[in-house]
């Protein structure tokens, strides 16, 4: 595991400060822009940056990220672009980067090759939307050999028993996906209950992806989860564009960050 991710883990163990994770689609609208947005996120104190590597068929993402992927695919963003992007980001920032995509994109590059290049570029972890942990053991080994963690996901359908086995070998943090691209269907009550159950089996922070789009929502989710993943709301800002986009992203992230402070 990368030192950056180890630090994240140990800082969280020490102070339990709620984490803010922000997602961007690499290459939306182009690679330079993504680098700029990543910088803004890092500057505003985002704890983890998820870099979504566009896939032709983002089955488990919602409409906003689907559209962003379609735009980015049009830009023909390849793995070399992604690695270059990460490497250039690393020139200035230590914020952990999670490269996220669908399994076939990693396979196409070759797992070994992929892990090596990503590691060299300063990527800390990967999230694979369609690789459940049961199917991931072999893949994890390949990535671990290059110090890259595979982030595990949990969902409303995950039982506590299943969570227990899954949490055992988990690294860095765990992501709770409350929606899978559809509507959030879980109630606050059951969300709270599930988090409480899971927390008995892991020391790692559980970051919740719950379609958060305002500071207030972030605060609400932050009460039960150890962090908040903001994806569609950020990508949607970028989709809207406009002259003062950088400034608006900065303000949006700042607002989220401030609501999350304990």
């Amino acid at each position, binding site marked *: 595991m990368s030192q950056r991710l180890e630090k994240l883990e140990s800082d969280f163990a020490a102070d339990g400060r709620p984490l803010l994770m922000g997602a961007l689609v690499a290459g939306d609208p182009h690679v330079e822009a993504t680098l700029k947005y990543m910088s803004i996120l890092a500057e505003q104190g985002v704890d983890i940056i998820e870099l979504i590597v566009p896939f032709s068929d983002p089955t488990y993402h919602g409409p906003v990220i689907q559209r962003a992927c379609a735009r980015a695919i049009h830009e023909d963003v390849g793995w070399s672009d992604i690695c270059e992007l990460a490497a250039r980001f690393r020139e200035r920032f230590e914020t952990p980067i999670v490269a996220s995509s669908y399994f076939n994109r990693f396979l196409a590059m070759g797992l070994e090759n992929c892990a090596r290049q990503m590691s060299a570029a300063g990527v800390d972890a990967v999230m694979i939307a369609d690789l*459940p942990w049961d199917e991931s053991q072999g893949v994890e080994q390949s990535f671990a050999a290059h110090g890259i963690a595979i982030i595990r996901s949990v969902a409303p359908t995950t039982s506590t028993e299943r969570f227990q086995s899954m949490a055992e070998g988990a690294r860095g943090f765990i992501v709770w996906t409350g929606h899978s691209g559809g509507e959030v269907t879980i109630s606050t009550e059951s969300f709270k209950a599930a988090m409480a159950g899971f927390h008995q089996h892991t020391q790692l922070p559980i970051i919740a992806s719950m379609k958060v789009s305002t500071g207030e929502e972030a605060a609400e989710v932050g009460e039960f989860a150890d962090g908040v993943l903001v994806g569609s709301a950020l990508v949607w800002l970028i989709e809207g564009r406009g002259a003062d986009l950088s400034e608006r992203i900065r303000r949006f992230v700042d607002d989220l960050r401030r609501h999350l402070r304990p």
Partner: protein
Amino acid sequence: MSTTNERLLPGRFGRFGGRYVAESLWTPLQEIADAFDEAVDDPKFVTTMERWLDHRIGRPTPVSHLGALSERVGGAQIWVKREDLCQGGSFSINTAVLQVLLARRLGRRSVIGETGTGDFGVALGSIAAAMGLEARIFMGREDLENETLNVQRMLELGVVIETVDTGTRGRKRACSEALRFWATHSNQAHYCASSLAMPDPFPRILAYALGVIGAETRVQLKRRGCDPEYIIAPIGSGAFGVGLFSEFAKHTDIQLVGVQGGGDGHGARTSASLVVGSPGVFMGTHSYLLQDDNGQVLVPHSIAGGLCVPNVGPQHARWAAEGRVHYVAVSDDDACLAVRTLARTEGLLVCLESGHALSYAIKIAATLGSEQHVVVGITGSGLRDLERLDQFAHSRQTP
């Protein structure tokens, strides 16, 4: 792919298969897998299923000897297995029966599915109606506009149709949307697969449901004194193909041929994942796939909606890798010509999907002797293809 996975995980066919899905779907899929395993061990369930097949949808379907076509071709005897005679006019109702029974067993109130040609939508809609469940079908807008007949039928059957916007024919996007919907409704709704290129347990479930096709065929051919040289099936996702081939896979003296959509015939606009594709993970399964160097999935092309899929079920990937089944591509034009030839020679109007297999069969039969036998699997009737055939007719000549 690691060797550990291959041995420990469910739903593997050699190094292919698996259950590559978001965590939210893992448990619902496991529930279906468990229910399926229990159900097929329960003689009462199996008897109920067989009753629906025999007394409702019209099993067994016949095997027909095509004397006139064989004579015209001047080679081997050509036979067809007639899934066009199932209720609704397509083989897919066989899978609907098993899956809706599973839904009922799981206490679900509705079923969800995806349809490209509309055949599976009609099949699922009719069985769901008969068993008192709601059916919600996802269908791409372009398919919806192309398949008016089947859309009318679904509406008449009370199916809730969810239109999915997509620029092309085929079921790729509709399938994603159906899964996304299911991911958040899995405790009220049961997902029913029509494609074999899906996560475990669907490849197993569909193979089980459709195995009856091959089993019947083998017995029927034997009784008629037909010892086949070739058995040929159209392969979209390959569910029908698995149903027909499995029974014969161990009889290595029979050559099995899977025919995919060759599109324009020049290899660029095609659906032939087993001919021009490569292994990859898509739609939850590790199998052959049409993709570019970056692992992006390519848009499939075929005049036959049922063949218009970018990937194929994992059983076929294994057979292809093992060399057990020979996979070929047949062009749109050749498929149309074969359908038309059959209509004029034998009075049978079959779907364009089957036309692909038939076209190849005709070519092969011509090279064989009259004591040899070629069997073709007919997946469905050609009623929904009349317009397309007519357009083809206007651009080419009649056989």
